[in-house]
């Protein structure tokens, strides 16, 4: 009898705690990626009918071939919240030049000096700087939206194959 009462109490507590929460759905593009909520793995997307409490929460998504995503959301008290994450892909880009004695730098931190290099670049814009004998001789924006091969000619806009 006591066990029965305890079971009822626990069921009621669980029901009330669920009622105080918000329904959570998470979609990702691409799907079938592990979604972490506040460090806890919710499983692979799409996530349906999960529960979340109002307040600040952190979502993290990592998938090979895509930029890792970290997103903090202050969840409002609502009936349901639905999140769609569009992961940013990483493309392989070949960068080639026939110019001699140049040093290339992307986004102020990544440098190389070889005439042909293969880069893994997050989709979007990147800032390219070209140095020669310690001086900046060229600056350009690189837009990456697919796997590409860039050819660099001194002080000319980048061309791709």
């Amino acid at each position: 009898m006591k066990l029965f009462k305890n079971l009822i109490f626990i069921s009621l507590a669980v029901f009330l705690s669920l009622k105080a929460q918000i329904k959570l759905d998470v979609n990702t593009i691409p799907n079938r990626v592990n979604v972490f909520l506040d460090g806890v793995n919710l499983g692979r997307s799409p996530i349906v009918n999960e529960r979340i409490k109002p307040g600040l929460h952190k979502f993290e998504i990592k998938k090979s071939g895509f930029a890792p995503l970290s997103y903090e959301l202050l969840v409002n008290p609502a009936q349901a919240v639905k999140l769609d994450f569009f992961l940013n892909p990483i493309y392989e880009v070949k960068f080639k030049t026939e110019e001699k004695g140049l040093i290339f730098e992307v986004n102020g931190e990544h440098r190389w000096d070889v005439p042909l290099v293969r880069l893994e670049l997050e989709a979007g814009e990147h800032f390219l700087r070209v140095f020669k004998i310690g001086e900046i001789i060229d600056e350009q924006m690189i837009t990456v939206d697919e796997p590409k091969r860039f050819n660099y000619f001194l002080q000319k806009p980048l061309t791709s194959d």
Partner: protein
Amino acid sequence: MNYILNNIYKIIPIITLLMIFSGCSFIRGPVYPEIIYNNRQPLISVTYEYGEIELILPLKYDAAIPDNILFKVYAQGDTVHPILSILQESPKDFLAYLPQGVLDIQNKTNIVKIIPQDSNFDPVQVRFKGIRFGRLTLPRKTIKMGQLVVKGKTFLNKNDSIIAGASITLQNFDNIINTTSSNRSGYFQIAIPGEYKYAEHLRIVAGENLIFKPFAKKLDFKESRKKNLNIGLGPSNDLKEPLYMTNKDNVHFRKSPEIGSETLFLLKEGEVISVDRVTPGEYFGFIEVLLEDKKLIQLEGWVNRSDLRLLNFNNIYK
């Protein structure tokens, strides 16, 4: 060129060995060791779905139903700005849909004000604790007609001095509906349910606990639910002393002192007579009669001496 062609069988193995040891990078170039991010803001879509609050307030009408009712819903203790105002014909259940999150779900600071569009009804309000969303059914609220109120002062007609502790009753026929008494300042306020608004035989009786004849007046609330009525008790200043009072009911007030003379009135106990002349067995004097137009007149007549006693203003309570 001829040299290359002549030695091609030597060059091919060397290139093959180079490719084996250096991998594809020999042709495709080296791989930069890190992934280069641009920290682009990811595309994220956040969609909230808010629920509704279905607020139900069952109503019950007592005796009468107002034509229309204005409902106002206030939330979170704000009694100035209603979140909803609805004027509708008096419903059986008040039903309103509110957006999620507007109500206080911790305390009873949300209010439904019910304002009947009828002067016979007083506004009432219901305080309640809200929910986040879903259906909320409040306890049934009864809408009653507003109370009928009589207020005023009791005073002595003779000198306008205040009479404290005079009993006040409201009666329908002879049924007492409510009773009170005037306070130290002579002030009284008495209320009865609104259902008596159209009662034909409603009256106020004051001073039954005094030695004087009680004051009685028919009441009519058809025009207004509230009445101010200052009640004068006892004889007026116009009655000259000495003053006597009847000591029992049905005292004969006669036209002349002779035995068998015409009886003008039968006086109740407490009727005051201003005695003017005296015979061995009879007193001649004046009584006051209040006419319907509130005019007070004096009538003369004879009363048996044994039916009277001298009026003592030092103790007017029974």
